[in-house]
């Protein structure tokens, strides 16, 4: 069954999109990630224009994050004050990101930038995860993993605008969480990802937040930032395709149900290797698409008036 996507300006099979949404929902159910990292490249593979792919799937993350936050909220694992600072940074970052997106779009370079960003990020993250998990396999017998120390005094603690964060038991400069939020906001605007992979280690190692609070608080930030990105992209760059987003969401909800059941049965280190391989595989495919010479150097289409 073919359906016309009004903003992407192309016709696709409904079931392909539903299937993609389902697949990504399934994966994010298994790995507990928003899935933005996988969904955007997959959308690119089936020919959705990169700007539409990025902007339309940012709102996917809103739904997934809301349900995540509710679970953490019930256990009092959300630091709302810290979340507010992160959101402020995130909104500033996404304003800048969406503006940059528009400029690049006007220059005609946005497709390339999105693909390059993805190759870079997927490569680095997949590689790091693979290194981490293979090291763990080698060191499996000795349980004494060297741990990085937390709460060491660094130059970050000398910054102004100190604030007290009760839930996180921290007294730190608000500029650091603001900056972290801003970076995540830019990423959300340009790549359509929630940025938890970046935000969580930053919150743990740079801010020194307790790990129990980190996940809920980062999800709390992601809700607002991805929502802001969706609105800004729709208003400023007109790249949010409602039909595409709806179909993806529909598939995603169903897929996530199955995924989370399977994810609960796998061990953490197994999951991590699988995820690393998946991320690297997608990265490789994107890179090949960028560097191989296309079959048709010029494309011709019959346009019916």
């Amino acid at each position, binding site marked *: 069954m073919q359906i016309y996507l009004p903003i992407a300006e192309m016709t696709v099979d409904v079931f392909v999109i539903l299937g993609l949404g389902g697949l990504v929902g399934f994966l994010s159910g298994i*790995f507990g990630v928003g899935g933005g990292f996988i969904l955007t490249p997959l959308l690119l593979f089936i020919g959705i224009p990169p700007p539409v792919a990025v902007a339309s799937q940012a709102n996917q993350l809103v739904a997934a994050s809301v349900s995540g936050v509710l679970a953490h909220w019930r256990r009092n694992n959300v630091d709302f004050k810290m979340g507010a600072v992160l959101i402020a940074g995130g909104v500033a970052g996404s304003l800048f990101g969406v503006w940059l997106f528009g400029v690049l779009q006007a220059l005609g370079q946005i497709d390339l930038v999105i693909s390059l960003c993805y190759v870079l990020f997927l490569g680095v993250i997949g590689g790091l995860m693979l290194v981490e998990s293979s090291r763990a396999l080698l060191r499996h017998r000795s349980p004494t993993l060297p741990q990085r120390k937390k709460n060491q005094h660094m130059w970050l603690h000398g910054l102004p605008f100190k604030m007290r964060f009760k839930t996180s038991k921290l007294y730190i400069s608000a500029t650091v969480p603001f900056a972290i939020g801003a970076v995540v906001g830019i990423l959300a605007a340009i790549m359509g990802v929630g940025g938890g992979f970046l935000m*969580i280690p930053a919150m743990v190692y740079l801010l020194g937040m307790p*790990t129990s609070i980190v*996940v809920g608080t980062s999800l709390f930030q992601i809700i607002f930032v991805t929502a802001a990105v969706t609105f800004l992209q729709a208003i400023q760059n007109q790249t949010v395709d409602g039909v595409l987003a709806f179909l993806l969401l529909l598939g995603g909800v169903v897929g996530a149900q199955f995924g989370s059941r399977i994810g609960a049965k796998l061990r*953490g280190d197994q999951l991590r290797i699988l995820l690393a391989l998946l991320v690297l595989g997608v990265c490789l495919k994107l890179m090949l698409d960028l560097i191989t010479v296309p079959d048709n150097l010029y494309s011709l289409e019959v346009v019916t008036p």
Partner: protein
Amino acid sequence: MSDGGPQDIISVSSAQADPVSSEKQLRVFLVVADDTTELTTALRYACLRASKTGGRVAILYVIEPADFQHWMSVETLMQSERRNEAERVLQKMAAKVLEWSDHMPCFYICEGKRTEQLLNVLEEDNVSILVLGADPGPKGPGPLVSALSGKLIGKMKVPLTVVPGNLPDEALDELT
């Protein structure tokens, strides 16, 4: 609490080495640690009962398993923070137990689902009575009390004492 450093806290199914606790007939009152207010009432009841009947108090702390994290260093840090939190809570409770019953409690630290781990401990160790605090509020007595006095009652190997969380200390003193 000279013998109560974190390194003294022992894990599953190895009750604290103590000459008396090896005797079978010793009554062990098991309390499950959580962050509710009725826990204190249940703990006090268990301590008073234990000291008046020559028994001992044991505390079970179940650590929730850490969710999957992309970065392993974050996940291991999360686990170690939960472990530290468990030991901190048990230290605090141990101080109360020492004050109320003149004995150090036994500790069980398990990882997993609370109900499952609790049933495991009841199965494998010689606990005599399980003491749970009940939330007197409108939301019901709490998940453990509801589960163990409801569907899972058949799996219980020991009697269950439910202490209402709103009993004042004097009432507890009298009752025990």
